[in-house]
């Protein structure tokens, strides 16, 4: 036996076998050996042999061997008669049964069905079926089984016999089963028998206090009705109720649709409450393919009017068909009704890859629009890569095309341009990002894209070049910009100019350091101005610091703070003290004192404390130097603090 995972020998005796047949339920396997040994195996139970029989008649290979339902086997043999004409023989039977021969003059084809076997001849179709037990119970001659009695009672009742009930009395206990058997039998029969049987079932139910399986009765009526209708001209599908059950309404309607009986299929769906989606979808595709007379708009109207009643139907798939038949307008207007954005965009992207340039643009534009509206980053990416013809960051990507598309509706597609800029920046392709922004007339982002490049350039000359470039970009005035934006651009331009000056100064400082052999850390290029000054003071080049300070116009207050930091870093406290006492400080003395205290120079700190304005602050300093008395005195000098505000109040005055 071979299956998906392995193959193994099941050890069947009496081989070799010339024919196999699997029953329609898939449970039974029949096989016929060359020696005429016939076996039935149970598939589920590890191919256990259920039955063995010898068929002497079949010494040659049968043309066909199929199951009639799960009940018996039909063997089709071609025998040569003595008059050398071919004889077609059909044997129906099974192990432990007699084989019933049927003879035909024309060639046959057998089709196994779930409840029997269809015999296709040249002129007619026959259906061979084992008589179902339910039918046997009722119609076998002289049957006194409860179902038969039920039918008899109905017959008496209908013929006006007042004592009809008498026939029911003996089967009172079995009545529910009888009703159910009647339904079973009805399903296997044709009208008028089936309707008689259903009537009998219905009649029987009147005598029951509780209805067993009401749904079954209803479904039986429904299915039978469908079968009967289908048998009629012009459809003429001889389907039995059991086959219908197996096929399902969905399968049936799809078959009908394929035969172009769309209306009937829809009616059946409506009547049984099944989804019309597949039928409608099939109908729409056929409609589009075949109705060349309609315009796109008309077709769209027709399709929409039908689709409205079926929520969740795949507009996108129909649109794809429309596109295949080069009905672009129809495709796009159908897509507009598709609720699933993924399907929408995917189809649009697919469509954009077909057709001419104009079609391409239309599709891409809609795809981008839909993607932007869905906010789904994946969809946006999908649409973008379609628009640019591949990976955005690749060399060949067509950024221009994206720019063109976005430019038409800059406001709605803002998110698209932002995403592209973001993707390009992430891949460090700032120049392309800048060009995109440029094309979209977005001056400010363009300038910032240029700015990004500066930081990645470690070479001094190159960096200067880029700085100048950025400065010029920022200086371009944009008439449409708001005042705030203009101010911001102007500032950025100035900042670039200042950075140019600073970098030049820093590099010349480094040159000087090299030629004059300054000690300490003399790397300046790229540092912030404040740090440059601090470092100069740290290494003792105060004159240079003063020069740079006046060149860059550093305000007095800031320079004082810088100087304190520099001297403190260099641990040059004598100098710092001299600095503190040399001139009145524009920034107060707290910073000096803090610095001294941090480095444990209480001697210098103490002298400065009286200069501190706030008495409370003075007291704090005294306390930190361990001078409680002085602190107390200072505090008493100071007035009570007042109105400290929301956040300070919570600490309380006393601390």
């Amino acid at each position, binding site marked *: 036996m071979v299956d998906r995972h392995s193959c193994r020998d099941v050890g069947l005796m009496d081989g070799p076998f010339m024919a196999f047949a699997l029953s329609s339920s898939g449970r039974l396997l029949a096989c016929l050996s060359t020696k005429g040994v016939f076996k039935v195996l149970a598939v589920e139970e590890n191919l256990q042999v259920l039955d063995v029989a010898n068929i002497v008649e079949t010494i040659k290979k049968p043309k066909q061997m199929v199951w009639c339902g799960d009940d018996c086997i039909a063997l089709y043999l071609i025998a040569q008669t003595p008059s050398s004409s071919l004889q077609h023989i059909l044997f129906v039977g099974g192990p432990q049964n007699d084989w019933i021969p049927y003879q035909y003059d024309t060639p046959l084809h057998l089709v196994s069905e779930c409840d029997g076997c269809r015999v296709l001849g040249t002129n007619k179709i026959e259906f061979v079926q084992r008589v179902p037990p339910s039918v046997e119970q009722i119609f076998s001659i002289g049957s006194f089984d409860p179902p038969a009695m039920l039918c008899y009672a109905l017959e008496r009742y209908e013929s006006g016999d007042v004592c009809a009930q008498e026939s029911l009395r003996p089967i009172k206990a079995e009545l529910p089963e009888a009703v159910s058997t009647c339904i079973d039998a009805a399903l296997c029969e044709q009208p008028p028998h089936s309707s008689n049987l259903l009537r009998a079932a219905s009649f029987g139910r009147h005598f029951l206090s509780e*209805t067993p399986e*009401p749904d079954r009765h*209803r479904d039986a*009526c*429904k299915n039978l009705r469908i079968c009967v209708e289908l048998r009629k001209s012009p459809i003429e599908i001889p389907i039995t109720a059991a086959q219908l059950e197996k096929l399902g309404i*969905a399968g049936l309607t799809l078959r009908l649709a394929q035969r172009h009986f769309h209306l009937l299929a829809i009616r059946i769906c409506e*009547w*049984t*409450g099944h*989804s019309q989606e597949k039928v409608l979808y099939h109908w729409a595709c056929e409609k589009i393919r075949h109705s060349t007379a309609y315009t796109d708009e008309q077709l769209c109207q027709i399709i929409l009017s039908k689709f409205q*009643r*079926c*929520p*969740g139907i795949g507009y996108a798939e129909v649109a794809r068909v429309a596109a295949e038949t080069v009905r672009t307008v129809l495709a796009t207007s159908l897509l507009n009704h598709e*609720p699933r*954005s993924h399907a929408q965009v995917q189809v649009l992207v697919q469509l954009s890859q077909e057709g001419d340039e104009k079609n391409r643009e239309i599709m891409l534009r809609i795809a981008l629009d839909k993607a932007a509206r869905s*906010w789904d*980053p*994946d969809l946006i990416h*999908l649409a973008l890569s379609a628009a640019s013809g591949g990976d955005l960051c690749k060399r060949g990507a067509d950024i221009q095309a994206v720019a063109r598309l976005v430019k038409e509706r800059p406001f709605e597609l*803002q*998110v698209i341009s*932002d*995403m592209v*800029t*973001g993707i390009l920046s992430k891949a460090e392709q700032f120049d392309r990002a800048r060009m995109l922004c440029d094309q979209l007339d977005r001056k400010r982002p363009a300038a*910032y894209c240029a700015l990004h490049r500066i*930081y*990645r350039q*470690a070479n*001094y000359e190159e960096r200067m070049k880029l700085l100048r470039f950025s400065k010029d970009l920022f200086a371009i005035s944009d008439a449409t910009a708001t005042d*705030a934006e203009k*101010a911001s651009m102007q500032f950025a331009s*100035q*900042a670039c100019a200042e*950075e140019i000056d*600073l*970098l030049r100064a820093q*590099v010349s400082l*480094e*040159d000087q350091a*090299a030629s004059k052999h300054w000690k300490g*850390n003399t*790397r300046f*290029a790229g540092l*912030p*101005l*404040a740090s440059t000054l601090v470092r100069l003071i740290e290494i003792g080049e105060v004159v240079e610091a003063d020069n740079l300070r006046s060149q860059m116009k*550093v305000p007095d207050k*800031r320079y004082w*703070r810088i100087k304190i*930091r520099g001297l403190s870093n260099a641990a040059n406290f004598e100098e710092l003290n001299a600095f503190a006492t040399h001139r009145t400080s524009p*920034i107060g003395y*707290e910073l000096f004192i803090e610095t001294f205290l941090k480095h444990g120079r209480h001697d210098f700190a103490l002298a400065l404390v009286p200069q501190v304005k706030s008495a409370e*602050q003075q007291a704090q300093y005294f306390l930190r130097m361990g001078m409680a008395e002085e602190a107390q005195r200072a505090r008493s000098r100071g007035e009570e603090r007042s109105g400290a*505000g*929301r*956040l*300070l109040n*919570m600490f309380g005055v006393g601390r």
Partner: protein
Amino acid sequence: MDSAVGELVDAVRADVRARLLDLLDEVTGRKVLLLDSTIVGPLDLIVSPSDLKDHGVQQWHKLSDQTVASDCSQMIFLVRCARIELVDMLAKQIHADEKEKKERLYVAVFVPNKTEECVQRLAASNVKANVRIAECAIHHFPSDKDVLSMETPRLYHDFHVLGDPSGPFYAAQALMFLQQKFGTIPSVHAIGGAGRVVVEVMQRIRKEDQAGQAKRSTLGGKVEMIQPGVPPVAPSPKGAAAIRRREEASQTSPALQASASPEVQEAKPSKISELVVIDRRVDLFSVLCSQFTYQALIDATYGIQNNLIDISNAAWAKDRGSSNSTVKLSPDDLFYQEIRDLHIDKLGPLLEEKARAVQQTYSEKDNVKNKSASDMAEYIKKFKTAQSAHPLLEMHINLAHALKDKIQTEDYRQMLKLEDEITAQSTSSQSCLDLVEDIMDDQKPFHEALRLLCLLSLVNNGIKAKQLDQLKRTFLQSYGFEHMLTLANMERAGLLRYQQGKSGWSTIKRQFNLFVEDAAADQDISYAYSGYAPLSVRLVQMTRSQPKGWIALKDALSLLHGPAQELQQPDSTSAREQDPNKPSIVLVCFLGGVTSGEIAALRRLSELEDGRRRFLIMTTEFINSKKLFESMRNEDVFKQPPVEGRARPQERSRGFGFWPTNR
């Protein structure tokens, strides 16, 4: 106390855990796990290391540029689909293995779902063929009993600066996930640009889902017959009822029926009754203002990461000589739960009391010596609990001391004073700006300077062009030209602006009652910020406190940034009366992060409303002002090599150290 909310969080945790472990079980055998750096940390919140071991994971690492060597025959990558650049690292790992001729089974798991982009990127890296692609819907990491965090940082920056909608998009997906699990939330409030995106995406997904569901239900499910003409067959009472129902149904149109049917199937009572989506941009004040709960101060000082703090730099920790450099602030720890939301002022006395109790238990030792055995046993038990609580208590006392010391330094007080003046608008903006400038001149941490500058800009609806230029220049001079981008980002994100028009701050303050008088502040939600009631929490409060919800506040809301929306989602159970005694659960979703202070305030709000509403917090991350400004900085700009001076051969020969040593 929040058992109802806790249940939801537990359900989410169980779900995510099951998903993750199922995924691991799909490939049998020993495996190595390579994780997205944003997942490694919070993974702890879902599964324990022993869980991973039980499911065959031999080792797990952060996915990085460094390749990992291992002899496991399987390798699983767990990567966020939004972080597309990680796919390259993944490919690098596979290529490295190939070079060493190692045969492995690779599974790339994308969180929360796989995207076309990821698959394309894999294909572009030439590894798609050897990788099995899977997805795992991990949306949330439950970081607390009432907090679900998505752990997707930088949403505020990405959305408001770069214009990238993926943050809100994935947040909307996460919200849909919660609604699938707990039922459609009937009432939705959203504010801000990102909030609008979330609502739009949510509505779209719902529409798509419904379309899909309609399809499924009509195909597979049993649908009532809707066409008249079926012969009545059943005389029994049950059958009669069925017919009547059918007749009712037949009067309505078929289309209506079909659209209604999925809802009937979905008839799950919604466990969450309200959703409030708040874009961080609407309420930046709450990030910029100082907070004073214990947890908020720990976060500001040490930075809480996945409920852990790193105290290796803290002086008091060194004194203790403890080997452990991290402390876990577990939400399961009852003691920490009790103190984390306390105002720092209230914390001291409580800790003291606890310490005294432990002390007393210790000292009772002498008294029990002569007592009976049972007393003794009881005492031993008491002693043991005291002893086990001791190290934890000691740690918290040390921590609290360190925090108290910090907030009492002069620098800190100066900052607070300035913050106070800015928010109260009590002094001229020029004098405030001068003080901010001083902070910059001292090269204090850049986020501190920016925090106050932005607060000033927000309160005054911008800063005058001349003043702002001056401040920006100072900033660049002190912190470097690299911050040009930081400033530009802040301007785009609305943190910093040139003044345009009058400030609406005083109206906002009044309308939302943001500043509460001292006496009431202790009990009000403003306690966490010492008098400032977080705007976001006020917004949540007002969905209920105002008779008509937000509609009544139209004017006030129009002063805030971004559109405010209110909508009702179709919910099958909305007609059903809610049990008035049962607290309703409100999901508050912060897009762009939530602060500790806001969490504390929301917890307090629930208490103030007598527990009628319980709050489940969903956030994209935990944020404080430092993190906010760090996200504004373009990190890669600071990692560039330094500028080389003019070509100087002798220097070249020395090599390119950033800071060459003395010459």
